[in-house]
């Protein structure tokens, strides 16, 4: 099939162009002949060639061309069109092409949008970025070429894991990748500005946009993954502290910290070194995520193949990146010009710095909980896992001061509060919130010290940001909305976690069971056929009015059973019913859950990203 050759050769040519761009940039830096006029065509070509190769792969998937190994391993003629297309990036090889395509796209955009930066800095950024692109191109071509062929051509493919055949999961990887990959530009630009001694306000306000892009996409990507896990995996939760989830959370935490300290750099020219470190760490964590997920070290639906070669390559590449960026950092870090003024304790920048440290603490907890089991297994061959209690115990108590600083910080002035006076109104509000939190918990009979304080802190943030939202006349609207969204998120999570109710039982057709004030009746079961699966639909009636029709799907290619939960959502709570088959048996395994405020967890996260996006709109208005 000719598309196999087109795809594979355009990848090869794009690698060639990357090498040319790399050499031109190095040459221009050395000869001080710093003109980069002609580069934009090359950047476009580089992107265009990877795009062609990506499109070829999509077409191969759409026409089910099984002479291609990737298509053969991951597709099937019976699959609906949408999942043929999304199957392109639902596997290791295809997802790497996507990764590479976004890399080349972003460097192209960077080139167009960075006119305001000094040419030398742009050239250095391009050099670093091309090193990353070349690294990933070689990785792709050498260890995981998507255009390998199977001879003779098989009649049928092996099919895509049905659990991945889902509309949300079709767009989850691209969105997440947009977030991951844009951290590479933050990384390159940070190193370049370090070398060119440009770590200053102008650089901060330039790189801030990229940080926002990365942060917004990463937030959305995590949200999509979380929604999918909620309704598809049938566990009825949104976050499980699963290693794969943690790995996407780590760069997110790092970016959040970075976002805030870039603001300090922009406004006060301090925290320069810290900004650079965070930029390096964000990207490292993103590549680490790819490494851990792709190498098969973590077992999950994300692990496509257990190929040690791939792991070793990414590991070496990762060490190279970390090592060289650290060398650059230590060579130049003393040249960062920094405002030597001490921070006043009651200033905006110190509250940002304090919360930065909190975020770093959360990051280390997640990091340790995620990689400790891996290390232990390598070192002592003991197999362990670290469960949610570890994370809850270490993170929740520290959320309390974190939320309070988050509420107070934005209301403080930059540089210095005039006089040290305890803000009386804020203290009264804190006390009122303590009472509210106590009363709320009293109603539900859940009073504990930890929960009361946590609820107080989140109510506090909620009311203060709500007040700002009404009063502030769109000054800093982006920050206010994001913080408001965050308080809403924490509130919904807290209320959701202690008000959720569930029952798990085994039922036969005709059975009836009482669960608190609900009567769950299992009325009948029906089966039907779709193009690539057979489904069993259970009919359940709750309180004689709500009809639930959860489904069990039995896919034939590959042979997998999935459960489709039936979820009834309203503003106050989700009702969630899921059934599972146990062997050939009359009994069905049934789980019914009531999850209060579930929808607010998703909505508040969307609100957080809207807040982030508003920072762009505001800029254009200026």
């Amino acid at each position, binding site marked *: 099939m000719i598309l196999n050759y087109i795809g594979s050769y355009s990848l090869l040519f794009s690698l060639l162009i990357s090498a040319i761009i790399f050499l031109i940039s190095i040459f221009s830096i050395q000869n001080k002949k710093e003109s980069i006029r002609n580069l934009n065509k090359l950047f476009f070509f580089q992107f265009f060639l990877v795009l062609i190769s990506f499109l070829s792969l999509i077409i191969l998937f759409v026409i089910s061309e099984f002479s291609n190994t990737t298509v053969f391993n991951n597709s099937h003629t019976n699959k609906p069109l949408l999942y043929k297309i999304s199957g392109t990036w639902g596997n290791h090889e295809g997802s790497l092409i996507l990764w590479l395509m976004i890399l080349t796209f972003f460097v192209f955009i960077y080139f167009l949008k960075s006119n305001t930066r000094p040419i030398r800095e742009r050239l250095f950024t391009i050099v670093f970025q091309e090193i990353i692109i070349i690294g990933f191109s070689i990785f792709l071509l050498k260890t995981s070429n998507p255009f390998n062929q199977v001879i003779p051509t098989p009649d049928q493919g092996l099919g895509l*894991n049905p*659990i991945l055949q889902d509309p949300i999961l079709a767009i989850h990887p691209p969105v997440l990748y947009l977030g991951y990959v844009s951290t590479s530009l933050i990384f390159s630009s940070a190193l370049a500005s370090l070398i060119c001694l440009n770590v200053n306000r102008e650089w901060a306000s330039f790189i801030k946009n990229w940080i926002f892009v990365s942060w917004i996409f990463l937030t959305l990507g995590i949200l999509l993954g979380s929604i999918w896990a909620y309704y598809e*995996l*049938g*566990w009825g939760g949104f976050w499980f502290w*699963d290693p794969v989830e943690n790995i996407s959370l780590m760069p997110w935490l790092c970016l959040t910290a970075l976002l805030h300290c870039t603001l300090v750099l922009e406004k006060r020219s301090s925290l320069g070194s810290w900004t650079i470190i965070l930029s390096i760490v964000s990207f490292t964590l993103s590549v680490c995520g790819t490494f851990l997920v792709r190498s098969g070290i973590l*077992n*999950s*639906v994300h692990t496509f193949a257990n190929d040690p070669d791939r792991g070793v390559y990414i590991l070496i590449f990762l060490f190279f990146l970390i090592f060289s960026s650290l060398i650059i950092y230590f060579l130049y870090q003393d040249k960062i010009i920094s405002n030597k003024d001490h921070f006043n304790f009651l200033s905006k920048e110190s509250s940002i710095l304090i919360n930065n440290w909190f975020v770093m*603490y959360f990051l*280390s*907890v997640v990091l*340790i*909980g995620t990689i*400790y*089991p891996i290390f232990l297994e390598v070192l002592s061959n*003991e*197999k*362990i*896992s*670290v*469960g949610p*209690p*570890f994370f809850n*115990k*270490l993170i929740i108590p520290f959320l309390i001061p974190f939320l309070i600083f988050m509420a107070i910080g934005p209301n403080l002035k930059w540089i210095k509060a005039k006089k040290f006076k305890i803000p009386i109104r804020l203290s009264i509000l804190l006390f009122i919130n303590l009472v509210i939190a106590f009363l709320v918990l009293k109603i539900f009979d859940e009073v504990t010290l930890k929960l009361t304080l946590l609820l107080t802190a989140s109510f506090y943030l909620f009311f203060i940001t709500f007040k700002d939202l009404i009063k502030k006349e769109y000054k800093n609207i982006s920050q206010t909305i994001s913080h408001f969204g965050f308080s809403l998120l924490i509130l919904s999570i807290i209320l959701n976690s202690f008000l959720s109710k569930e029952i*798990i*039982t*085994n*039922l*036969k057709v005709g*059975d009836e069971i009482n669960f608190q004030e609900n009567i769950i009746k299992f009325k009948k079961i029906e089966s039907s056929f779709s193009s690539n699966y057979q489904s069993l639909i259970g009919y359940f009636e709750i309180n004689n009015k709500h009809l639930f029709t959860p489904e*069990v799907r039995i896919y034939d290619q*590959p*042979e*997998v*059973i*999935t*459960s489709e939960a039936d979820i009834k959502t309203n503003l106050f709570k989700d009702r969630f019913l*899921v059934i*599972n*088959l*146990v*062997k050939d*048996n009359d*009994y069905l*395994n049934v*789980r019914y859950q009531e999850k209060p405020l579930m929808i607010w967890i998703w909505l508040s996260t969307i609100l957080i990203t809207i807040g982030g996006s508003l920072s762009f709109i505001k800029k254009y208005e200026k």
Partner: protein
Amino acid sequence: MYGKKVKLRILFLVILLSSIVLTIFLVLKSLEENVIYFLSPTDVKNLNEIKYDKIRVGGMVKNNSVKINSQKITFIITDFKNEINVTYSGLVPNLFQEDKGVVAEGFLKDKNYFKAEKILAKHDENYMPPEIKEKLGEK
């Protein structure tokens, strides 16, 4: 003696150091309390004394061993050398089938009897816990 600034800085360093030490201590302590060990049925048989902590037991679901009623599900986990009886009442994942890999999390009652609180199977249809693959490979 020392100036006010130096004193302040020393105080700051002391606070910083002690909070770092405290944090590390806290993290390690809760790590120790919250790790869950993974054992195969053979490991369970070879235990000197029964662990009453939460553990995971992994292996294959023995053929024809799954029984279900309205209260609970019982089955046998085997690693083809030793077996262990499991009772469970809770959500059963889709990939839970006879002759397939399974990981159960819960508490040991004695060396032959395990009370599971959770059954894990979030993997694809060809998944076998790596531990089992290794153990089978050893044979």
